[in-house]
């Protein structure tokens, strides 16, 4: 019985949307498995479906399942012809009577009505990932943007078929409910997109017995000409609405933006998995931007650390960063006897045990290891840096490496002077500077990055390792930033989703929250508050070279190391390690997401 629940749950959108296939297979399974007969209650209704809000007699199950499959086939093939007429005439009074509905649908299909609506279903496509949907929107966007905006606008004003829209108070945009004819298409859409429709969260205030949450805005009004979107899935519409909203924000048309933001929330609910989460985070960020409720940027650093720890566990990005940077540092320290590493963002110090161990196993014995860890001030005055330092010290002691730690507290790296970073008391043979996702924050402050880079140069490091997000979220135009961020975080969330972690999982949720905060910062904040100013590898390269650094190329052993790491120990097979002019990038499928680069002082050959 548990298994059946899981299947049904999978069908209602716990997993990444696999469209109608999940639905028909789950109902099919429920039908074909003999076990389900145990699930009948006294009234003869199938218990499991009753949970979902459908009343189907167990005896009818086989029949209903067959008819649903028939219906699905017809709808799939009839896509071009416009099966939208189905939504017109028949009035369904009892939405939970699944078999009755299916029957009437099938009879209608055999006697098509005359009215012409837009084709609604395209079930075969509902499997497409977010990227596919965004690319869809990417195509149609430039030419049709204005029309899309207006059609969405009018959709906004005409769309009334979700019961829960009525339940939302104060939305003047939504006129009082129309005839039943629109509600069928909702239900129809809902039925066939069981696989992709999402949680029950939003629909809880609805008046009708809908166990499954209402799918998002579905119908177009009957007189609207065919909308210029290629496919009708809510997903594509969702992306369009997001773009439209961002554009409205850019144009300072806050009223429209407000309406659209609410709409996004509804559309998002109908999606499953990564798309829903991304859309929700972006919608929240947009709402913050519109209403000027900026997030408290003085986020508790220890909670950010905790979130990052969960992110470390769920996906390989941070591990990739640490392994590649350590490899470069290890090679730079090949013959040194006393080494000094400056870590621009110590956090929990997860990067350093592996390096300490590698140094311990160096032929000839380990060097003395000095670590300077930099971190933000803690609100409760605890010395987080020292705690981490002690832990690392204990670790190093365990494996016989001489270790010394020094903590530097700073709100921003640009506050530090070069003298603070140096250790003058020790005879240091080699210095390495390491920054994981820290340098981009300096771009918020004018002159920040230049100051820090010149401080680094003053230390004469043997190597500087920098890991940064591979995206341009620092453009001057809001809409461009928004679009870039949407693509980027969609890929990231896709990769989290694809990591095969059984939902719901605390690590996963925390990782998503970690990314959600970044999204909020990119979209909602401006000026000094907007610290997530990611830039691409190419941009960083230019900056570094201008500042007087020359690249250090990663060897094949680093590449092999991370490839093995991903192949064996990371969950999910969509990750790709690529080499980019001597730097290494880790991405999800075709999209590079983070990049590690290594630099040394450019020597001028005289």
């Amino acid at each position, binding site marked *: 019985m548990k298994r059946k629940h899981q299947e049904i749950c999978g069908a209602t959108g716990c997993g990444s949307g696999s469209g109608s296939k999940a639905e028909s297979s789950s109902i099919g399974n429920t039908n074909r498995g003999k076990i389900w007969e145990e699930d009948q209650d006294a009234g003869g209704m199938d218990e499991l479906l009753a949970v979902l809000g459908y009343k189907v007699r167990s005896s009818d199950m086989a029949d209903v399942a067959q008819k649903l499959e028939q219906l699905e086939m017809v709808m799939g093939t009839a896509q071009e012809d416009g099966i939208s007429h189905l939504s017109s005439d028949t009035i369904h009074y009892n939405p939970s009577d699944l078999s009755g509905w299916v029957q009437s649908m099938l009879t209608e299909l055999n006697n098509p009505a005359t009215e012409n609506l837009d084709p609604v279903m395209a079930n075969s496509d509902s499997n497409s990932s977010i990227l596919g949907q965004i690319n869809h929107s990417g195509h149609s966007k430039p030419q049709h943007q204005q029309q899309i905006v207006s059609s969405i606008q009018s959709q906004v004003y005409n769309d009334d078929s979700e019961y829960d829209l009525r339940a939302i108070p104060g939305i003047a945009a939504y006129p009082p409910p129309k005839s039943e004819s629109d509600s069928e298409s909702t239900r129809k859409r809902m039925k066939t997109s069981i696989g992709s429709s999402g949680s029950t969260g939003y629909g809880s205030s609805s008046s009708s017995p809908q166990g499954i949450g209402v799918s998002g805005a579905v119908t177009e009004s009957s007189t609207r000409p065919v909308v210029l979107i290629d496919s009708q899935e809510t997903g594509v519409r969702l992306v369009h609405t997001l773009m439209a909203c961002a554009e409205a924000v850019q144009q300072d048309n806050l009223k429209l933006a407000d309406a659209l933001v609410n709409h996004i929330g509804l559309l998002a609910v109908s999606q499953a998995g990564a798309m829903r989460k991304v859309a929700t985070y972006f919608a929240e960020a947009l709402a913050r931007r519109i209403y000027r409720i900026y997030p408290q940027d003085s986020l508790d650093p220890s909670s950010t650390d905790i979130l990052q720890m969960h992110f470390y566990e769920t996906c390989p990005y941070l591990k990739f960063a640490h*392994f590649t940077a*350590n490899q470069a540092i290890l090679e730079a320290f090949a013959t040194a006897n006393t080494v000094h590493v400056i870590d621009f963002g110590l956090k929990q*110090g*997860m990067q350093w*045990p*592996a390096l*300490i*161990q*590698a140094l*311990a*196993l*160096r*032929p000839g*014995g380990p060097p003395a290891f000095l670590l300077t860890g930099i971190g933000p001030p803690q609100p409760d005055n605890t*010395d987080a840096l*020292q*705690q981490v330092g*002690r*832990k690392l010290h*204990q*670790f190093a002691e*365990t*494996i*016989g490496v001489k270790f010394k730690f020094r903590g530097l507290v700073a709100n921003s790296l640009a506050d530090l002077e070069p003298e603070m970073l140096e250790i003058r008391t020790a005879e240091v043979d080699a210095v390495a500077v390491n920054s994981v996702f820290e340098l981009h924050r300096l771009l918020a402050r004018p002159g920040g990055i230049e100051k820090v880079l010149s401080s680094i140069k003053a230390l004469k490091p043997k190597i500087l390792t920098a890991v940064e997000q591979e995206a341009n979220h620092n453009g001057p135009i809001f809409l461009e930033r928004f679009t870039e961020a949407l693509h980027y975080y969609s890929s990231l969330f896709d990769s989290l989703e694809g990591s*095969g*972690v*059984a939902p719901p999982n605390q690590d996963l949720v925390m990782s998503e929250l970690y990314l959600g905060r970044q999204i909020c910062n990119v979209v909602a904040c401006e000026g000094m508050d907007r610290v997530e100013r990611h830039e691409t590898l190419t941009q960083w390269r230019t900056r570094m070279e201008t500042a007087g650094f020359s690249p250090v190329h990663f060897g094949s*052993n680093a590449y*092999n*190391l991370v490839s*093995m*790491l991903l*192949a*064996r*120990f990371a*969950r*999910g*097979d969509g990750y790709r390690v690529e080499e980019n002019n001597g730097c290494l990038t880790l991405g999800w499928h075709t999209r590079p997401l983070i990049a590690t680069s290594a630099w040394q002082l450019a020597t001028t050959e005289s």
Partner: protein
Amino acid sequence: MKRSTPDSQIPGADQKMKKVKVESEEEGEEGSGLMNLDENLLYEILKHVDARTLAMASCVSKLWLKTAKDERLWELICTRHCANIGCGTQQLRSVVLPLGGFRRLHSRYLWPLSKPQYASTSSWAPPPPKIINSKPPARLGKDEVQLCLSLLSIQYYEKMNFINRDRSF
């Protein structure tokens, strides 16, 4: 009986054989054959088996478990299958033993890495099909070994978290 170090095994072999005979006469009803082996002899035998056998040996009885868990045996297994990463034996021991030992290194990291590649190793995936392990696993290269050692260190460090949290600073 205190186990003698590997170096002094051979001179003591005669004495051991006598002791085994005596014991088997005294405890004749305790079972037959292999169950009568004392620890040292068992150790000697297990020095020559492969990883899978060694692991299975620890499931036989308490005595066998105690013997098969010996770090030195697992060290032999690890070094047999891994390329030399350039450091001395003692150096390697001084790092691996405190971080969890060779047995853990092998079972958690070396062994999964040397298995032939199939579906992802998520914990709730259906159990992988049984591999007929006729050939010993391929020798792992330097990079693989270093990866495993790094992961071992990270895992040890992460576990340290809990210990530290209890202490008050």
